[in-house]
């Protein structure tokens, strides 16, 4: 899983049958502090996330393992809306 920030929604009328009724979110990958990284994903929304939300995103074949995304042609899903991230331990070197 990776941290991401929802920066927009994809509006699409013509799409695969299995994507109908699913919200597509444009998500920018961020680090644990919310600082933006280079990569982005178009992800299916499984938790009613909205623009500006700090979320947890799952990618690859694992992304199909939710009730919302089962058997659909997708490779990224928003699985949680993050309330807080706490760093409690550091690894030297």
């Amino acid at each position, binding site marked *: *899983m990776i941290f991401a920030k929802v920066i927009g929604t994809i509006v699409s009328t013509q799409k695969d049958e299995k994507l109908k009724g699913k919200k597509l979110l444009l998500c920018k990958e961020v680090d644990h502090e919310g600082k933006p990284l280079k990569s982005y994903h178009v992800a299916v929304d499984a938790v009613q996330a909205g623009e500006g939300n700090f979320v947890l995103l799952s990618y690859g074949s694992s992304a199909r393992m939710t009730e919302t995304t089962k058997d659909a042609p997708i490779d990224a899903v928003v699985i949680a809306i*993050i309330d*807080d991230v706490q760093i409690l331990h550091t690894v030297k070197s």
Partner: protein
Amino acid sequence: MKLGIITGVVWASKKVKELDGCRMFILQPVAINGSKTDSPLVAADPKNIASAGDRVVYVTSTDAAQAFDSGFAPVNASIVALVDEIA
């Protein structure tokens, strides 16, 4: 499977129901000697075995879902064992 050290906790009250009751941790992959290898990742703890500072064994990719009783969860990494010692 690889070794990692738990460095942080991710709190999320709203998540998909497949992950209900499952805690999420930030995990630093480490080498056998305990030094950092790759960049940190987020891992699920379906068996509730880890806490901050622990050295654990984790599994990635599609196989991560197998750590859940249901075998069905949208996770890229799961913690599957707590390391007591390497003998």
